[in-house]
């Protein structure tokens, strides 16, 4: 019975219980409008974090080697649940009046995070696929949550079609890996590969399968050439959902890349380093250049998220302890700064979505202006912010692996990106407001809390980076 290790998934069980409760409350409550789902969802995530804290530090196999809970999976669970708390904080004033059944919204966020957590603990390719689907299916619905908004529906269908396409490709890859090594368990894949595959057509089919899995993962990461959906989906989806996708789904996808390719498929990973170098360069360059011409801030941040994926892939290309630990550090900083920037947008969106609409807002609302300054500085990579230290560690890993020219290209890219990030601040502080202004209708205590949490987190990461970086380095045990 030890195989049914329910303790190792106890945080997820708590979350599932809350999600089911939300759905039932929506159906059976006589006063469906009055429940404070917002606070309930935050307490669900806090409870999950507490359970995860009790588990943290142990290494447990469970469910007949379908799952492995190790320290890095624990760290990622903290990241996902933290993202859940911040998204819950910033959602409520934004979806008020636009979504009829708020319980569904929070239940879907929770279920999507359970999917991410399953990705983090997967030790078998079938668990990975189920986690990816649980995460994606919830996000497809969330993207179309504003039922009367054409852009939201379009974002939903585009994400759905291309997401299902990428899942099918990933499944094809898994089928070929299974066909050549005869198993889908992470450790058995490595064993059987060394035992049975010695060159020839079998190895070729195996590598084809690995390439198909890589394509599926790169699609979720939104790396070029699988990025076409990103701008439309991120622009059309409700802003709070975009914040969730841009931070949570991206973090889960990067952990999927690290976990699958450094535990299960580490026998094949060196075959793909060269092409990953190329993908990394083209991803960050294309993301930054396309972002230069955008007027819509959400669309600009969507392209910037493509560029950030490019920077993070440098850490994967380096394939050493510093580079891989740097990805985790970068992901934390990246999630914080995007959540913060979108929390500001949630408040400013009633004025409009383009750059012109935020003009003058910096002095009209000094707090929002200050916050946006911190987040944009972090995105450019200026000290003393987490974005700077993230880039610093990623580049350090690449230098240790001998990729000087790659680092030079990335630094040039960062310089280009300063233009469009700082342009937001120029509009906010140096342009005249287009209307007389006055108080924002949706100023809200919860969004303010989210802003304070994210900005303090970013400054902490920037000023005391050693604290987190030592933790991530210590637990980065996946090495090729």
């Amino acid at each position: 019975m030890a195989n049914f290790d329910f303790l190792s998934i106890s945080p997820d069980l708590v979350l599932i219980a809350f999600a089911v409760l939300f759905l039932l409350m929506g159906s059976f409550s006589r006063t469906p409008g009055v429940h404070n789902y917002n606070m309930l969802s935050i307490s669900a995530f806090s409870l999950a974090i507490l359970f995860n804290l009790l588990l943290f530090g142990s290494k447990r196999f469970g469910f007949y080697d379908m799952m492995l809970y190790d320290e890095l999976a624990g760290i990622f669970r903290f990241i996902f649940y933290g993202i859940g708390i911040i998204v819950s904080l910033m959602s409520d004033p934004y979806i008020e009046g636009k979504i009829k059944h708020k319980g569904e919204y929070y239940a879907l966020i929770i279920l999507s995070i359970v999917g991410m957590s399953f990705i983090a603990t997967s030790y078998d390719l079938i668990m990975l696929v189920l986690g990816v689907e649980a995460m994606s299916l919830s996000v497809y619905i969330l993207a179309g949550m504003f039922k009367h908004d054409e852009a939201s529906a379009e974002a939903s269908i585009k994400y759905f079609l291309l997401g299902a396409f990428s899942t099918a490709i990933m499944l094809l890859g898994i089928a070929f890996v299974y066909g050549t090594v005869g198993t889908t368990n992470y450790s058995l894949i490595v064993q059987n590969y060394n035992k049975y595959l010695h060159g020839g057509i079998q190895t070729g089919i195996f590598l084809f399968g690995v390439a198909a899995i890589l394509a599926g993962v790169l699609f979720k990461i939104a790396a070029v050439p699988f990025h076409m959906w990103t701008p439309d989906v991120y622009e059309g989806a409700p802003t709070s959902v975009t914040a969730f996708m841009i931070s949570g789904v991206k973090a889960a996808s990067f952990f999927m890349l690290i976990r699958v390719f450094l535990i299960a498929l580490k026998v094949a990973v060196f075959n793909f380093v060269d092409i990953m170098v190329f993908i990394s360069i083209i991803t960050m360059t294309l993301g930054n250049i396309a972002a230069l011409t955008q007027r819509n801030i959400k669309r600009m941040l969507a392209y910037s998220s493509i560029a950030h994926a490019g920077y993070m892939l440098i850490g994967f290309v380096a394939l050493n302890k510093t580079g891989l630990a740097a990805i985790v550090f970068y992901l934390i900083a990246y999630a914080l700064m995007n959540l913060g920037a979108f929390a500001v947008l949630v408040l400013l969106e009633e004025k409009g979505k383009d750059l012109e609409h935020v003009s003058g807002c910096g002095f009209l609302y000094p707090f929002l202006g200050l916050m946006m300054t911190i987040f944009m500085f972090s995105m450019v990579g200026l000290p003393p912010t987490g974005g700077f230290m993230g880039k610093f560690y990623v580049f350090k890993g690449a230098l240790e692996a001998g990729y000087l020219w790659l680092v030079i290209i990335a630094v040039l890219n960062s310089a280009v990106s300063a233009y469009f990030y700082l342009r937001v601040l120029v509009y906010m502080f140096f342009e005249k407001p287009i209307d007389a202004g006055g108080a924002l209708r949706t100023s809200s205590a919860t969004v303010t809390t989210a802003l304070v949490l994210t900005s303090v987190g970013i400054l902490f990461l920037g000023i005391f980076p050693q604290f987190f970086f030592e933790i991530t380095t210590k637990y980065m045990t996946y090495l090729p």
Partner: protein
Amino acid sequence: MISQMNFFLLTGLLIFGIGALGLLIRRNLIICFMSIELMLNGVNLIFVTFSHYLQSAVGVLYVLFIMALAAAEVAIGLAIILLIYRLKGTVDMDSLNTMKG
């Protein structure tokens, strides 16, 4: 002479390819959606073939999981297509042009 296993594998790949091609060139959302189902069924055939020739039951279990996934995707996909139809009055992919840039 093509062996029996390769015949089934190639059939599976062919079905997968037809699905992928259909998704890329057809403009009707329902047809695109059916193409995705076709791709998943191609994968299913490949799994069953490998499972049979490797004498391993894992592949057949995979097929059951993929069928469940496909059913979930049907539920969500058709709901989203219905939403598009209500808003725009058509399920043509070229009508999805609200966002540009």
